């Protein structure tokens, strides 16, 4: 029982980490590009957008996973959309009530979370097939990955394009902001740069892993070849 508990915990951790790094929705799966490029012009906007998406994804995944056996497959997509749209409406109202400034800045993009393919994708691929605890870990991981990616982009764009970070001026008056960074082309430039960086790190890690594997299999081969007796060869 203890072993199963450990493997259970191990799987939950795995589901969480997978979304954060190996299957990062932005840097690896390149999903949900609309908000990624459009509202990542400042750190605060990207953080607000990321956290709103996280709220919607976590609660939708929990609900979908809890009722997964009761939802007939013919109406599953419709039901998922109803669930997602409900949470998006809640986020919209809560932001308008508590953070009107952010609500005005994000504008139509909050309502557009409904059609963010990261969210519907997780429901269809994961939550509708797994128990709530795994769905929760998966949703938290994927949305944390999404927040991380958006925040990276938003910070880079705000620092270079505005010379500020969370509206705090970073450089002296002599700094000339790269206005292009807060404009749409800046979104593409930063995303391209981050994708390059991310893939480079991943490639290096994969290369190191495959080297380790090759070394291990070479060692194993050597053992097995040494172990093969003359009798085996005769049998062959």
């Amino acid at each position: 029982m203890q072993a199963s508990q450990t493997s259970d915990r191990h799987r939950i951790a795995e589901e969480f980490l997978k979304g954060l790094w190996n299957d990062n929705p932005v840097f690896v799966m390149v999903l949900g590009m609309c908000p990624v490029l459009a509202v990542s012009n400042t750190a605060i906007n990207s953080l607000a957008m990321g956290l709103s998406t996280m709220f919607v994804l976590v609660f939708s995944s929990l609900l979908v996973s809890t009722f997964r056996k009761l939802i007939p497959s013919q109406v599953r997509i419709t039901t998922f959309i109803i669930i997602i749209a409900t949470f998006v409406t809640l986020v919209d109202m809560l932001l308008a009530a508590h953070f009107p400034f952010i609500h005005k800045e994000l504008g139509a993009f909050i309502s557009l979370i409904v059609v963010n393919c990261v969210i519907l994708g997780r429901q269809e691929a994961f939550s509708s097939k797994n128990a709530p605890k795994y769905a929760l870990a998966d949703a938290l991981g994927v949305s944390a990955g999404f927040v991380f990616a958006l925040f990276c982009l938003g910070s880079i764009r705000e620092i270079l394009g505005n010379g500020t970070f969370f509206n705090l001026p970073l450089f002296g008056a002599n700094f000339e902001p790269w206005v292009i960074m807060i404009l749409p082309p800046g979104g593409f430039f930063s995303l391209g740069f981050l994708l390059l960086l991310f893939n480079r790190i991943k490639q290096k890690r994969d290369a190191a892993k495959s080297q380790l594997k090759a070394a291990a299999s070479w060692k194993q081969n050597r053992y097995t070849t040494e172990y093969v007796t003359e009798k085996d060869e005769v049998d062959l």
Partner: protein
Amino acid sequence: MSTNEDIQKNEALEPPVNKDPSSSRLIITLALAGLVAGILISGVNLYTQPMIRANKAMALRKAIFQVLPGCTDYQPLILDNGKLKEIEPSEGVSNPDIPQTIFAGYDETEALVGLALVAQEPGFQDIVSGIFGYDPIAKIIVGFEVLESKETPGLGDKIIKDPGFRENFTALATEPEITGVKQGQKQKANEVEMITGATISSKTVVRLLNKGLGETKHAMEAFAKEKSTK
């Protein structure tokens, strides 16, 4: 107990494809989902509505001072039989159903600086709601702010953010009717330079101003005359 088995079971769980559920089950599922969604949304709406209303009122208050330079105090007005009448503060506050769309702005000496008017017009995405300041004596628009819009971010929302576009409304003549022209082609005082790439949204603003003025222009001028003679 055996969590591994659970995992395998869950992974093996595919949506039941072979068995077609009855239509009533499909309808009930969707109806239940809709019902729960409705309950959740209306519950949160009850909680957030007063706050959202207060935020909007605050934004409107701020906008009135912005569109009427020199204004230090304002008084809500109502259009009654083609004449503008002052609403008693209690009337306006206690009854949120009375839409407050016209405000008279006064300076420190309690002289009328102008009138602020809220107007709506369908834009590219949704209704654009804006407020503008009107000087009924000089017959010019002295300021404009967007209160609510869902125009395309990066293009249409320039009507809110573009400083060049906003400059159109510092002293915009209203006679003859306001018209929109392409960027760099402004020649007359009643022309608004539209934003390249956001023509529909810019035209919406022009229509919004004309519509707002069309309904109340004479009443506002009469109100200003009455005030100046007093």
